[in-house]
């Protein structure tokens, strides 16, 4: 750069290096995330009438939330999705925390083996997990009925994936089995980062064993638990793969396993004789986006700011 130019550059107040360094990330993010997102929101405001794309304002959302079959299926999918999330919060995360607490126990042998074994399902593809569990639970070829038979509990077996009342819970538990490794790993890392001195000081004060977990460790890992909850929330409300792999796009039996993801897929791309409707599909996608946005905001402003952090 010529000395004169440099001088001009130095004199101007705009610090050009900031936009220049930000540009690559901003451009890539805009092209692959921001633009598609806003285009989806825009698409939701249109409809196709006689091969013409027509602006219809919020009519698609009106249909989705309040009209006949559309809204019936939407609220059904939302309720199922909520149940899917509740199971994860009540089963996956407590088990993950408990496993992490056990694994971080200094006298546990083979901890590395258990850790890997529990984490491995997480890296498997949804298709494999869905198919494997479908086979395990199959009333015809599955091992589940024969195992139950061996311990004399054959009468407990039911074709869980085929019953309306059990199918969603069964799938949620399969998903828990697959992903329990993630909260376990995150909490495990948080537990390891608690300094020995804190625990020793507590021990001197007479806090040991279980009460050391409840009164010392748990408050210290609360921020990690918050992160896990929000990850679970986002993951569950975006879920699709497992249900699709195990039950198909119609999320049977009788839509009892239909969640927002499968509803979106069926609407957007169409299914069997049902033709795809990109505009209603975009409306569902926008609704999903809003739900996740609201959930994350409640967490960020309502919960995270109130969490106490400790420095050690």
């Amino acid at each position: 750069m010529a000395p004169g130019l440099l001088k001009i550059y130095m004199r101007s107040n705009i610090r050009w290096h900031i936009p220049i360094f930000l540009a690559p990330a901003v451009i890539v993010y805009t092209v692959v995330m921001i633009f598609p997102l806003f285009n989806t929101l825009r698409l939701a405001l249109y409809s196709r009438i006689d091969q013409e794309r027509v602006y219809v304002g919020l009519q698609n959302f009106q249909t989705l939330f309040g009209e006949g079959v559309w809204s019936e299926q939407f609220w059904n999918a939302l309720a199922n999705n909520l149940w899917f999330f509740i199971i994860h919060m009540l089963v996956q995360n407590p088990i993950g925390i408990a496993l992490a607490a056990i694994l971080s126990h200094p006298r546990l042998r083979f901890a590395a083996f258990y850790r890997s074994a529990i984490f491995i399902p997480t890296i498997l593809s949804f298709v494999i997990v869905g198919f494997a569990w479908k086979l395990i639970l199959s009333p015809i070829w599955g091992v589940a009925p024969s195992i139950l038979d061996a311990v004399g509990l054959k009468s407990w077996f039911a074709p869980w994936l085929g019953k309306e009342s059990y199918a969603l819970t069964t799938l949620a538990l399969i998903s828990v089995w697959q992903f329990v490794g993630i909260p376990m790993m995150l909490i495990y890392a948080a537990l390891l980062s608690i300094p020995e001195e804190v625990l020793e000081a507590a021990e001197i004060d007479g806090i040991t064993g279980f009460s050391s977990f409840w009164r010392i460790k748990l408050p210290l890992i609360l921020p990690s638990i918050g992160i896990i909850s929000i990850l679970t929330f986002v993951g569950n409300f975006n879920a699709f793969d497992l249900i699709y792999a195990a039950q198909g796009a119609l999320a049977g039996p009788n839509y009892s396993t239909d969640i927002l993801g499968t509803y979106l897929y069926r609407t957007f791309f169409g299914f069997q004789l049902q033709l795809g409707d990109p505009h209603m599909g975009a409306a569902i996608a926008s609704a999903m986006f809003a739900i996740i946005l609201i959930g994350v905001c409640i967490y960020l402003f309502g919960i995270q700011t109130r969490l106490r952090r400790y420095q050690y």
Partner: protein
Amino acid sequence: MIQKSLLAALVGVALTTSTAWAEDATLIIESWRNDDLALWQEKIIPAFEAQHPNIKVKFTPSAPTEYNAALNAKLEAGSAGDLITCRPFDASLALFEAGHLSDLDDMESMGNFSDVAKSAWQTDDGSASFCVPMASVIHGFIYNKDAFNELGIEVPATEAEFFAALDKIKEDGNYLPMAMGTNDQWEAATMGYNNIGPNYWKGEEGRLALISGKQKLTDEGWTAPYATLAKWGDYLGDGYEAQTYPDSQNLFTLGRAAIYPAGSWEISGFNTQADFEMGAFKPPVQNAGDTCYISDHTDIGIGMNAASENPEAAKAFLTWAAGPDFASIFGNALPGFFPLSEKPVDLEDPLAKEFVSWRGECESTIRSTYQILSRGTPNLENDTWGASVAAIKGTSSPEELGKKLQEGLDSWYKP
């Protein structure tokens, strides 16, 4: 100088390769029949390429349940193949109306087909045809002949005989009476409701009356099949609620079940899988001597992508596909998919012959929900899946199901 001649050589190479490419058109066929991959690669394509040495054909199927979605996305993006295997009725009609499929009325060989055969791929007023009809499938029941002989059961012709046979098989206990599950839902509607239904709603008569609004889904003819399906539940295997379509196929071909509610498309798969003798019987009628109706459903056509880069080659393929050579290869290589051309094709497979012989004895119709009635939301076909499952499980009465379906249909369809 050297550079110049090198450049000339490069240009020359580029030119020759590009002209060679223009002559050797490559056609890509989109299809949902991934089961037929071997047949296309080993029989149909070589037969066509032998007659048209400068056209290469590639068959690129996708999974049946994903086909429509994948195809629509590909067509929108302009990356779809030259030839499109057509689903019957609205899915293809929508593609034609969106300008993705070419009008084929000027093709002379379309004259080889009857109006009924073409109806699945025409505009509602019949003014334009956009797919060459390839095949239809016929519904019925396939049975294990060994099992029937062992138990001394005659092939049932009436409903009473049908349930008597099921009772006998159940009593004996060696075989599962009937192999069907409700997990995938569509079998209950396709192999259940639309298999036995035409005998109740009198085939085309009832189907057309439903479209014109003269009959309702709450009428006796449309709810009675659900009442019959409700009786099926007792004869299906333990845990049939979670039994999938491949489970049912395997149960039957392993010889564990005696009767399989079928579509004729199963024939080729069953021939290779089952090592016992199979027979077929048509949906039983209520009283001996009643006119029988069968579902002879136009199922596959093939059309041309309007955006194809090789329209001439694609037309050549379609002309060939409408002719007798293709019909005879297709009909015999895929027993169970019956060619629709007016000239009858000699079939060799005994099971396929049995199925196709019903065309002479009974009145043919197509599946009740496919034409026009599945255009809106809620989708009548998808709803019928759910309703048939509910009927078999016994969670709703036939009258409730009929009422629910009719309400769904009324919400968007005015005859």
